[in-house]
């Protein structure tokens, strides 16, 4: 069953080829067998899953329910889930049982999905290798010595190893697309404001966006359709209608103007990785799309810009973890200062602390203008570069990452090389644009991703562009050895 896509599973459920309970049991067994090797989960919610599956079966038996009724999914542990541990992979929240559901969790619940568990991730979504988790690193199903990418490493690894047909994820600087690329799965980050952030534990509020990791673009269209939409509880969510993303998946790409970002094909790009991207572009050309080189002159500034804006917001967002009302609290605090210092000192990991300190610094009196304000200005310039590019082309296509997955521990000692792994993905976050990563082949036996960036709210377009490629190729259907 697990070799099927989510769309096929949903169809099977409706045709009663199998029940949701059977499907759920099947995935729960795979998760329990896979967890020791991959560590993709923080929490497995067996009982709740089976109860939800039974309820879904009743709905299906009564001829009710929607396209996702009975479909098992996994939530990244950054999304609040009522009555279920919600840790953000941090010691700080290692005892936090959320009293409420995030909006997308509630929406997917209402759509009839069955939550299998909570996916491991980088602590507070800060990381590109899933090595900063308090619960230990996630391993890449294609090679357990390698990282799955991050921060949504658990979500990507779970889908890649077919421990779940879909996993929600979040993307602040590439946290959906980069692990999707490194694990050989499909991951979409929608337009900023398309998916509610309510109940999604904040890292950098102006960049964070929820999305989903699936096997195929068609699957992503199905799940995103249920997640997206205006939420009165999130002032930054946008009140525009959600189209049926599946309706336009098969639109022709003939005459589609594809922009190749000059800045993406730079010397940092692994030549073999570049080769896979060029091959994918040839597929589009064959389908009648037109390729055109475009330049975003300010894009090379995206990494430094991001590493000012994101830490600044994070330093403030994470101030609420003070040991007073919820979460981790140090033993026997002497006084208030001691409570703050030891709770935060013991509750946060090194990368989170590094970003809080960086963020505190760039917002400080005397440094604000030179760092934060300047970064915001550069951010505007980068957004304008994208706007200009989209006057010429319909989508931008390039690599998702410079290289395939790297070894565990390879970059942990050097934050800058780690940060550079997000060089191709950060731009879309800074400009708030939708982007998707889909598998486009292998480099030295490891999957690499093709990134498609669209105009604001052009999710339907990038899903369509991704889907027509997946009709022509089967990279996305490849399963890591040992997980078939």
């Amino acid at each position, binding site marked *: 069953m697990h070799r099927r896509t989510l769309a096929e599973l949903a169809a099977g459920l409706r045709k009663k080829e199998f029940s949701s309970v059977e499907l759920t049991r099947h995935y729960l067994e795979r998760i329990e067998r896979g967890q020791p090797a991959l560590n993709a989960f923080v929490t497995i919610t067996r009982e709740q899953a089976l109860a939800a599956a039974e309820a879904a079966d009743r709905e299906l038996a009564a001829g009710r329910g929607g396209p996702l009724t009975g479909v098992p999914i996994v939530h990244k542990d950054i999304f609040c889930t009522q009555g279920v541990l919600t840790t953000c992979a941090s010691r700080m929240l290692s005892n936090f049982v959320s009293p409420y559901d995030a909006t997308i969790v509630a929406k997917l619940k209402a759509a009839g999905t069955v939550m299998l568990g909570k996916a491991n991730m980088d602590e507070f979504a800060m990381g590109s290798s899933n090595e900063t988790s308090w619960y230990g690193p996630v391993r890449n199903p294609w090679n357990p010595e390698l990282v799955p990418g991050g921060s949504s490493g658990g979500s990507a690894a779970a889908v890649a190893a077919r421990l779940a047909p879909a996993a929600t994820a979040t993307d602040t600087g590439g946290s959906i697309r980069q692990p999707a690329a490194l694990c050989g799965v499909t991951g979409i980050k929608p337009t900023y404001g398309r998916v509610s952030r309510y109940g999604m534990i904040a890292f950098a509020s102006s960049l964070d966006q929820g999305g989903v990791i699936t096997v195929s673009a068609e699957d992503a269209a199905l799940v995103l359709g249920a997640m997206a939409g205006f939420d009165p509880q999130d*002032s930054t969510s946008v009140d525009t209608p959600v189209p049926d993303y599946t309706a336009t998946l098969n639109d022709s790409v003939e005459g589609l103007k594809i922009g190749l970002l000059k800045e993406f094909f730079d010397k940092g790009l692994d030549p073999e990785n570049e080769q896979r991207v060029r091959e994918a572009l040839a597929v589009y050309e064959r389908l009648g799309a037109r390729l055109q080189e475009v330049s975003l002159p300010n894009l090379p500034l995206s990494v430094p810009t991001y590493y000012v804006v994101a830490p600044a917001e994070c330093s*403030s967002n994470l101030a609420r973890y*003070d040991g007073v009302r*919820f979460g981790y609290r140090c033993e026997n605090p002497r006084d208030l200062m001691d409570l703050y210092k030891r709770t935060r000192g013991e509750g946060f990991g090194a990368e989170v602390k590094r970003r809080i300190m960086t963020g505190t610094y760039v917002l400080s009196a005397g440094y604000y203008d030179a760092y934060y304000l300047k970064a915001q200005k550069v951010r505007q310039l980068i957004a304008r570069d994208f706007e200009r590019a989209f006057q010429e082309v319909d989508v931008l296509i390039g690599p998702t990452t410079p290289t395939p997955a790297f070894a565990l521990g390879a970059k942990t000692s050097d934050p800058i090389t780690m940060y550079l792994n997000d060089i191709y993905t950060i731009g879309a976050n800074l400009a708030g644009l939708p982007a998707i990563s889909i598998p486009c082949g292998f480099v030295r036996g490891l999957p690499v991703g093709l990134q498609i960036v669209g105009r604001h709210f052009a999710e339907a377009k990038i899903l369509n562009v991704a889907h027509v490629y997946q009709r022509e190729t089967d990279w996305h259907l490849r399963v890591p050895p040992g997980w078939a």
Partner: protein
Amino acid sequence: MEWETVIGLEIHAQLSTKSKIFSGSSTAYGAAPNVQANLVDLGYPGVLPVLNREAVRMAVKFGLAIDAKIARHSVFARKNYFYPDLPKGYQISQYELPIVADGSLEIVLDDGTRKRIGITRAHLEEDAGKSIHEGLPGVTGIDLNRAGTPLIEIVSEPDMRSAKEAVAYMKKVHTLVRYLEICDGNMQEGSFRCDANVSVRPKGSDRFGTRTEIKNLNSFRFVEKAINYEVARQIDILESGGKVVQETRLYDPDRGETRSMRTKEEANDYRYFPDPDLLPLVLDDAFIDEVRASLPELPDQKAARFSEQYGLSAYDAGVLTASRELADYYEEVVRRVPGEPKLAANWVMVELAAALNRDGVEITESRVSAGRLAGLLNRIVDNTISGKIAKEVFEAMWTSGRDADTIIEEKGLRQITDTAAIEKAIDEVLAANPKQLAEYRAGKDKLFGFFVGQVMKATKGKANPAQLNELLKKKLQG
């Protein structure tokens, strides 16, 4: 050396919205700790703020009432600091782009002159919770019911030159926010409080001295006392050759003094930056016009109208318009006692005010309603009773809760207007005081008052005073 005091106030007024500024919890005062704090107020992981439109409307109302600029585009910013009563580790406020800027109010000084006090800005922000020490030995309790209550912080220019001016300004703002029905003005509950920035400089100097900020003053009396104490303290320091330290100070009402809380060096770096969870607040002209149309008659407008329409002095008009309720009461009395606005003004400002003050009762809970007071005044106007007897009747009305006519009848206080009866009383008084009569007739005019008093005494004050005067004059002339 002669010194000049320079004062600026930052007034915090809690907006009387039903729910909090960024969440749906109730803002009602006095609930058990933490029952009015939802997940947003508690700063739980993942929650987000949603702006309360009513708070915006109220801030705009205030801005229009002080003739300020209403920002078409204003921005919420985070003020970052750690404190247990601040759940998120930051307060959502407005920093560089406040909703209201550049307004002013006029105060009336003791000598009757008017002075314009500039208002630099007024911005929206959320209140923090409270730390509780009372009844909790060895620990600190946190009550987050107040966390997220909407405030406007009203920042004045350093335009005030004495504690009295500061109090006059604060009272003016207090009156205004209550007129606008945007704040209940309850200072005991902390709905209206201020921080005072105080400095002194040699008279004539055009540079400001080093200032101190006195935090959290929650009564007009404390504002006056704290500023006067602080001014004296600063002058002492300067005159003995010292330097005032820029710092935040706390006023201790029990000791009547201010003491240091933290110096500038210890001050937080608040690391303000625009709150990415909230979009910039954009207001259009239609909204502002709609709010403008909803403004009530403002205190100054009302006072001017009272002077004009009722022929009152500026002072009286000012007193009677100090609150909307008092002004409404007065106008109700005037409506029911046609043609006697001054009589009504005197009664409201003297007898009624004294009774309210004595019993600590608000005008809205007055034991003598405007209608009842008008009933009493009408008996003065139609000569049923004298003004003096009316005071007695008023006291009886206040204590018994009954109306004037009932009391007049019951106590037989109806005025004597029968000429024969008054003449009889005069005759008796003159007969009983032959010595005084002789002295009067010998030219001691002052004794006229003595005879008036005696007749009034004999008639238990009920003789019509005008008639008495006339008849007495005739009789004395012989």
